[in-house]
């Protein structure tokens, strides 16, 4: 089976993360299996195992979905129940796939997969068109600011590869998307089962002039760092060797959330608001003149200021907001409901503070995407707009401008679990 192209041994390729979403039986697992299989990323022993299982279960064909089956419960029920990560590479790129389930009760996993994705593949069954779950996924993708959305209209083989079916669904989807803030939208008619337009161009849909799914994934742009981006450096850990060799050494370790840091830059440490300049930037003990997102480095400042985990070092020319009062779009992930006056822990960059929910402003109706202002309790998989007040000020940007400094998670202090994913839309 496997016969990898030798160019994969390429240390200069970049990393591209994408997620998949769709309703149950839309063929997500089959699509991923097809991508892996046709891009020759399946090993012989995996192939043999899937072949044997397909035969044992009496399938009439090689069930490509089995390549992504993980946990025992999934194999027993024949469904995907959690986010699974897959990896493959082509000569152009290394890919990380967050394979997320379509079941309504597991929508939280789609949000999880979407939070770090450069692109989302949304599957639609050509026989069914846009359904409730499609709207929900499109909305989540826009809410999470995924740079590219690839709508794959699947099972084209079951509608005789007809162009008008594709066009009708494309139109339906564009109508849904027009109500949302979607960054870039792409449409491809495919048959994951038969392989049309996944890796190889379809011979049965000559009317389609676009590229295949793999080709698109290989060529979509990854937003790089623009030197105009405002520099944000959340302090993660203070490095103090306390050895004779490095007697008074002190540096601030962290991963640059956005922008570029240069030696000598004028910076402000927030929330305290103290100014200084960057004395040095180090990586693995070596000095550098500059560093950019998403590099993990260690920074030291010219002035002796008290800086600790949870503080943020930022470019003095473009300051983030420092506030206790925040308005969030929240995706709720817990069976215990969210309501006004409940208290939670908020984790934001490297900071953890307590908060109280001041108000539930509205809930989103996932069918109409309308705001429901009279809905005040928020349950599992609901998306709502809430206002919170934190015990200590947070240093934030709006999610719209910064996915790292604009995002938070809420944690239940009793169960310690992550109960909500929040995107900062406003400050009060």
């Amino acid at each position, binding site marked *: 089976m496997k016969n990898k192209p030798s160019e994969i*041994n390429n240390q200069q390729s970049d990393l591209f993360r994408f997620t998949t979403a769709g309703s149950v039986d839309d063929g997500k697992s089959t699509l991923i299996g097809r991508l892996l299989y046709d891009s020759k990323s399946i090993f012989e022993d995996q192939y043999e195992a899937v072949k044997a299982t397909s035969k044992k279960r009496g399938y009439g064909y090689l069930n490509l979905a089995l390549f992504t089956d*993980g946990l*025992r419960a999934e194999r027993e029920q024949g469904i995907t129940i959690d986010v699974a990560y897959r990896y493959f*590479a082509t000569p152009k790129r290394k890919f990380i796939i967050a394979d997320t389930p379509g079941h309504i009760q597991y929508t939280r996993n789609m949000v999880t997969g979407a939070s770090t994705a450069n692109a989302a593949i949304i599957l639609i069954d050509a026989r069914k068109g846009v359904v409730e779950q499609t709207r929900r996924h499109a909305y989540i993708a826009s809410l999470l600011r995924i740079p590219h959305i690839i709508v794959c209209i699947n099972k084209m083989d079951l509608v005789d590869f007809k162009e008008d079916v594709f066009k009708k669904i494309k139109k339906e989807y564009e109508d849904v998307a027009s109500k949302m803030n979607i960054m870039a939208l792409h449409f491809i008619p495919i048959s994951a089962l038969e392989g049309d337009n996944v890796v190889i161009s379809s011979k049965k849909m000559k009317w389609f002039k676009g590229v295949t799914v793999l080709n698109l994934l290989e060529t979509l742009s990854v937003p790089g760092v623009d030197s105009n981006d405002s520099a944000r450096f959340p302090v*993660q850990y203070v490095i103090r060797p306390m050895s004779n060799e490095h007697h008074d050494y002190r540096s601030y370790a962290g991963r640059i959330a956005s922008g570029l840091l240069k030696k000598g830059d004028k910076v402000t440490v927030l929330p305290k608001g103290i100014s200084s300049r960057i004395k040095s930037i180090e990586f693995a003990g070596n000095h550098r003149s500059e560093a950019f997102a998403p590099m993990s480095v260690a920074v030291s400042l010219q002035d002796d200021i008290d800086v600790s985990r949870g503080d943020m070092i930022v470019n003095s020319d473009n300051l983030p907001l420092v506030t206790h009062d925040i308005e969030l779009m929240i995706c709720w992930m817990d069976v215990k409901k969210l309501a006004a006056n409940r208290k939670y822990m908020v984790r934001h960059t490297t900071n953890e503070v307590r908060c109280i929910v001041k108000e539930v402003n509205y809930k989103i109706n996932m069918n109409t995407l309308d705001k429901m202002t009279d809905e005040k309790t928020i349950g599992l998989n609901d998306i709502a707009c809430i206002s919170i007040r934190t015990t200590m000020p947070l240093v934030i940007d709006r999610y719209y401008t910064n996915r790292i400094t604009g995002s938070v*998670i809420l944690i239940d202090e009793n169960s310690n679990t*992550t109960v909500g994913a929040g995107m900062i839309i406003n400050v009060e």
Partner: protein
Amino acid sequence: MNQHHLTHLKELESESIFVLREVAAQFEKPALLFSGGKDSIVCFHLARKAFAPAKIPFPLLHIDTGHNFEETIIYRDDLANKYGAQLIVASVQDSIDTGRVTEEKGFNASRNVLQTVTLLDTIENYKFDALIGGARRDEEKARAKERFFSHRDEFGQWDPKNQRPELWNLFNGRKNIGEHFRVFPISNWTEMDVWQYILQEQIEIPSLYFTHERECFIRDEVIYAHANVIPLKPNEKPEMMQVRFRTIGDISCTGAILSTAATVEEIVNEVAAMRVTERGGRIDDKRSEAAMEDRKKLGYF
């Protein structure tokens, strides 16, 4: 591509360093699980970079089955000495001697499963609250579902159906007393990434990974090193072979591959052309279709 873009290896490295620093910041008593295999070696290398010029702020923990290759043990001790790292060795033999576990019997007996008890006992004795491991999601289907920060209950068990959602780069390490976390900084690396990184960083690795002459025998299509911990069946005849190891675990459960790769470059090229998965030679995974999932639920690495 503009200059402000990271290669995939640099981006993975940065992500892993971020995770390692989160561990040091969020936990009181972490330890780095060190097996002497390439993945834990890469984790150690990343940890050195993460905290430079300070020393790594946690000890290395090796669960020694007593069935390790001699080369692994020599490498482990040299590494700890060279970098002044604190090394804790917990022995499966001790768990057997004190009656905590019973040794498996038969030709395919292995101490692989027994390690879990030694590991959990050690976590309890030292009160470790986070164990950093070199597991990768591409290795195995149950591992594909792991989080970076993976919660373990007071019995050290993993509940794959009730995992905490993990969003952006916000890692939730909150827990009750007695519970702990397993943390996997190189979750997103593939076998190829690990080898390319070893090549790029010129990381020293145990000699077992390079081609050498060794007395081996074949059982169930797997090449085993001939050693007194694996009793031979009457029809099995050891012979000298030109081999290397693609993964390093216990002698009793690690298969060798025929190879002439003598340098890391040659290994990278060989891995690129591989037709069988890395764990294809791991006998511990072959016990059943869900062997890894079952072991992980009980507290395995």
